[in-house]
Every structure is written in C-alpha cells, then in structure tokens.
C-alpha cells in the first residue's frame, strides 16, 4: 500500500513536470512590458473643453463646431437654430505628445491658438502610472469691432490667455474621468470690479455605451466669476459617435462659445431654466505623415 502511494506521488510529480503546458512557459517567459493607456477619450474635446487626447503624430484634425441659439427661444427662432455660432480649427500632432491648434470663432470674431503637451501618461505593467497629465495653454484674440472708434482697445487689450492642467484617468475601457484646474487671464475687463484673473475647476467624464458610442458630461466651476455679466458655470451633456477617422459629438450646453476663455468665464445661460444650446463638433483626421513599418 505504501509502495502504491509512493508510485502515485512520484508519477503525479513526473506528469506535472512533463505536462507543463507550453503556454504556461510562454506566460512565464513573457517580458513585463509597460503599456500606455490609449483612447481615454474619443476626441480632443470632452465636449466644450479639451480632453487629454492629442492628435496622433502626423495627424491633422479639421474640427468644425457649431452652437445654435437657446432652445427656449421657441418655434419662432426654430428653437435656436436660426442663430448659429461656428468655429473652425486645425489641430496638428507635431509629436506623439505635442499638439498645436489654430481656430477661428464667429462669436466675437475671435482667433485662437493653443499648445497641448502630454506631460505624463497613464500606463499599466512595469512602472505603471495612474493618470495622464497634459498642459494646455491658449491665446485668444478678439477682433469684433463693437467699441467706440475713438476709444479703440489696444492689441494687448484684445487678448486673453488660458492655462489648464488636464488630469485624466481611464478607469476601465468604458469609463474615463478628467479634472481640469484652469486659470484664465483677461487683459481687458468691462468694469473695474471684473477680475483679470479667473480660477476655475473643470470636471468631465465619459461612459461608453458601445465600442463606438459614448455619453459625456462636462462641468466647469468658476471660483471668481465676472461681475459685469450674470456669469454661470458651464455645463454640457453630449454623445460621441466615432466612425473611422471621424468623431461626431452632439452637445447640449448652456454655453454658446467653444473656446476656453469664453465658455468658462462668459457663459450666462441657466441650463435648468431652459437656456440650452444645441450643438455639435465634427472632427476629421487626415494622416499626413505615415509611420514607417519595418520590413
């Protein structure tokens, strides 16, 4: 009996060794690689504001954004559709981490330029990191001539600056969240009590409904809003639909403008009072430089 048990025991060990699965060996031999998280968001915008996503290296994005008038203007204004604001922009991925953009908004006839740089990237595996952090900086130049000709603001007075730190985490393939500390500086203010420097904090997230569709929400809290207008915090809800090189975003927001200095500090609509602007962003990516694949 003792001999029988010994035989079984030895055979079990022998079988285990010889039967060691080839896949198990591969598993144990697989290098522990660092994998960077991709596609935290589908587009370069959560809705109104920037996401941590950049255009890929060599990718040129043509972005067309529209915001219509307020839905509660009724059927006479076709629920705001009679009034249209548009922004065109080109955004280019200079490197994997650096993106440059140029845009022009019809609202206040404003030109804007921005730089977005990925400082740190969320990764898994060896030396993983929990979040992606990007720096965003933009300049906006207002060219609408609504001033008294005798009292024309100087070039500098027409400029505004925005700096943001974008901190985002893709919790899983379906859910991502971003926090965005923001600093806005306006060279010119309407009245004395308007702050030149405005601090705001943005919150944005997305939940994927399917591989190609997600619902997004975005909120910017402003700590010291402008006094000369009845400024409200910006709120937006939307849906992302991605098809190949396009991303469509359908948006409902109390902000009518599409650049940071404007929608964060100059929003006056009361979302829950029905001051909602329907809008959309359409982006098309053109790949200018192709990566060389080793042959």
């Amino acid at each position, binding site marked *: 009996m003792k001999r029988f048990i010994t035989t079984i025991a030895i055979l079990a060990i022998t079988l285990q*060794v010889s039967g060691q699965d080839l896949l198990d*060996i591969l*598993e144990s*031999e697989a290098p522990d690689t660092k994998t960077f998280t991709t596609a935290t968001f589908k587009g370069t915008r959560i809705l109104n504001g920037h996401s941590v996503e950049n255009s890929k290296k*060599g990718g040129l994005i043509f972005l067309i954004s529209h915001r219509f008038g307020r839905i509660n203007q009724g059927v006479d204004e076709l629920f705001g559709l009679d009034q249209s604001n548009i922004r065109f922009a080109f955004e280019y991925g200079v490197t994997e981490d650096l993106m440059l953009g140029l845009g022009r908004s019809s609202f206040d006839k404003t030109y804007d330029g921005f730089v977005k740089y990925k400082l740190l990237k969320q990764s898994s595996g060896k030396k993983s990191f929990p979040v992606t952090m990007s720096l965003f900086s933009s300049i906006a130049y207002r060219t609408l001539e609504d001033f008294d000709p005798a009292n024309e603001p100087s070039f500098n007075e027409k400029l505004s600056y925005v700096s943001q730190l974008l901190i985002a985490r893709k919790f899983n393939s379906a859910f991502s969240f971003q926090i965005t500390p923001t600093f806005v500086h306006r060279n010119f203010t309407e009245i004395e009590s308007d702050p030149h420097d405005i601090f705001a904090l943005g919150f944005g997230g997305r939940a994927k409904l399917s*591989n190609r569709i997600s619902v997004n929400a975005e909120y910017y809290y402003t700590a010291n809003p402008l006094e000369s207008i009845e400024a409200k915090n910006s709120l937006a809800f939307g849906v992302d639909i991605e098809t190949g090189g396009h991303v469509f975003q359908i948006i409902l927001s109390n902000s009518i403008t599409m650049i940071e200095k404007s929608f964060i500090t100059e929003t006056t609509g009361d979302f829950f009072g029905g001051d909602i602007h329907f809008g959309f962003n359409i982006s098309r*990516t053109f*790949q200018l430089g*192709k990566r060389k694949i*080793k042959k």
Partner: protein
Amino acid sequence: MKSYYILLFFSLFITVSNAQEKFITKKGSASFFSHSPLEDITADNDQVLSIVDSSTGDIAISMLMKSFAFEKLLMQEHFNENYVESDKFPKAIFKGKIENFSDLDNSKQEVTVKGILTIHGVSKNIETKAQLHKQENNITLDGDFPVAVADFDIKIPGIVRNNIAKIVKVTFALDHEPYK
C-alpha cells in the same frame, strides 16, 4: 524493491531532459495584410512568443494585440479599441501540433500545422502549411494563412466596409532557439 525506486528516480530525469528539447523565441514576427478596393492595411508585431517541443512537435504561440504596429496611429488605436478589444482580449494564442515532426530531417521542408487559434476570445480550428527548418540549435517556422475576420466575431461597421478586407492574410516568421 531497490531497483523499483531507482527506476522511479530516473523517470524524473527523463522529464527533465524533455524540458531541454524545447525551443523558444520571444522576438518572432507576425503581420497581417488587408487588401480592399480603397486601401491596403498592414500591421506588424515583432514581439511574438513561440515555443516548440521537439520531442512531440507541439507548438504554442502567444502575442499581445497591442504590439501590432500600424502605419496610421489612429488606425492602431481603433484596432485595439473597436475591433479586437485588446483591454478585454489582450492576446492572440495558437496551440497546436506540427505533424510528423519526429520524422523530419535537417532540410528545409513543408509541414502541416494544425491547432486552435484564439483571437478576440473566439477559438477556431485551423490547419496550414508552413516551411520548417529543423537544425541542431535552431528551429525556424515560416508561413501564412487566411483569417476570416467574421469568424472571430470581429465586427466591421458598414461605413468602413470598403476599407477593410473580410479575409486578411496572416504571415508569420518564428526563429526558435533552445529553451534553457
């Protein structure tokens, strides 16, 4: 009684020596090619792991889907996010057998490889011809085979139907060295 234990003891060594007959590579290459009226798409993975047991001809291959490099980076992101869903199914795995392996001599010759290919969580039996060159310290295996995208439950939306082939050609080149 004593000889019985000696026999058992030596049976341990037999299995240990078996382990010496395994050949492995961590830098194998696999690529796929999709031809369509609108565009040709190639993606390469040069971090393929493969192991061959030369005593049986058993073979196992494993690769990370995220290691496939595309010319267009956005395409690579879409491949991982929307098509093969790399977060859910990180690896493609093949487990099979090189037929009549022990009968092969040291010349380069055609062999039949049979086994189960798992991509996107779906397993399919496949059989393909490949070029095998067995040497003292090296086993190379090269070949290609067609993969029907739909077989692996990978859905191609209507809008890009003309950009992506229904059947893609998978090419592999594996250069195994002795596994220690």
